[in-house]
């Protein structure tokens, strides 16, 4: 586990396999320290494939002054030596646009597969809006199809996740509380 939030807020955690960046951090310092960390780590792990999960990617807006630029620089560290050691990096990113509309354009462009998750009363519905049926056609012109939420149904719907795939789970923004739901009688 890589604890970005705790690193930025100076909350120290002495837990095995929980990694933090120490010392002073701002956008630029974070990118430098992060790429050093990732490069050192990828030298120690000997594997062909790695899965990355992020929760939430849209949290970068809370931590960085220039989230769009910094988030891109973080992603581009992969090209600087990591991809040679671990050739197949796949990722599932969770994103909520209320948190960070600044990175939406980039994160959609980056992702091979986009799953949009809507709330319908108490049910969550998921739709693949990019990738899946024809991964080479990258512009999400219309809803491709509805799927059940979860890694297994997603994997089945896609017919297996291809190498190097980045999957974006776009969570619908929470609904604005209506006047009715707050009229509690005290």
């Amino acid at each position, binding site marked *: 586990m890589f604890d970005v939030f705790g690193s930025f807020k100076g909350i120290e955690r002495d837990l095995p396999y929980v990694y933090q960046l120490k010392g002073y951090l701002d956008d630029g310092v974070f990118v430098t320290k992060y790429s050093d960390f990732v490069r050192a780590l990828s030298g120690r792990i000997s594997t062909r494939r790695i899965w990355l999960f992020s929760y939430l990617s849209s949290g970068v807006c809370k931590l960085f002054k220039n989230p*769009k*630029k910094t988030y*891109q*620089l973080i*992603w*581009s560290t*992969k*090209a*600087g030596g990591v991809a040679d050691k671990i050739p197949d990096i796949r990722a599932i990113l969770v994103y909520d*646009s209320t948190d960070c509309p600044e990175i939406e*354009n*980039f994160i*959609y*462009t*980056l992702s*091979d597969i*986009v799953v*949009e998750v*809507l709330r319908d009363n108490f049910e969550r519905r998921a*739709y693949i*809006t*990019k990738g899946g049926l024809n991964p*080479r056609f*990258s*512009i*999400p*012109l*219309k*809803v491709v199809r509805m799927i059940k939420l979860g890694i297994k149904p997603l994997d089945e719907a896609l017919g297996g996740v291809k190498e*190097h795939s980045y999957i974006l789970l*776009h969570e*619908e*923004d929470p609904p604005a509380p209506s006047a009715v739901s707050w009229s509690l009688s005290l």
Partner: protein
Amino acid sequence: MKNKLEEDNLIGFFNISHALPIPIELMKKRDINVEEYLDSLNLAMIDTFGSLYGPRIERRGVWYLSGSLSYELLSRKYADVVRAHKELWKKENMFEGRELWGIAMDVSEYSSIFGEANALGYFEVSAEVRRRHKAYREYPTGTNIWVFSGKPDRVFSSLYRRVEYVVRTGGSELTP
């Protein structure tokens, strides 16, 4: 871009809004052999993002703008690297029988780099530079595709009036 390169045409890719390793990775995922086209000089990449913030990819076919970048100087610096690469195309006799395309991605980024008013100023000056500079007078000129994303602003209106064709792509309608 993939089709144009496969047909052996010439492309200048102006990278503005992304750290260059990312568009390169995206192109590779779409089966564009970026390194091969950079080596053969068919593809030139002008990396504005990397010139401003890094990282830089030092290799044949990738160009950086030198010194500090202001909106007043930008179009002249572009013209200098365009001329340098066009000189290579000329030396290798590559203009003959090939189409020339310029792709700028995304021009909307100039507003966040320089501010909307300055970005507008840049586009107005750049039209003038393209008319006068040797890079455009002494070498063949191509067809440009400008990618604009996000909400329309004054820069968009100005570009909209100037271009011959506008193609609008739709995003997803689920989570607006």
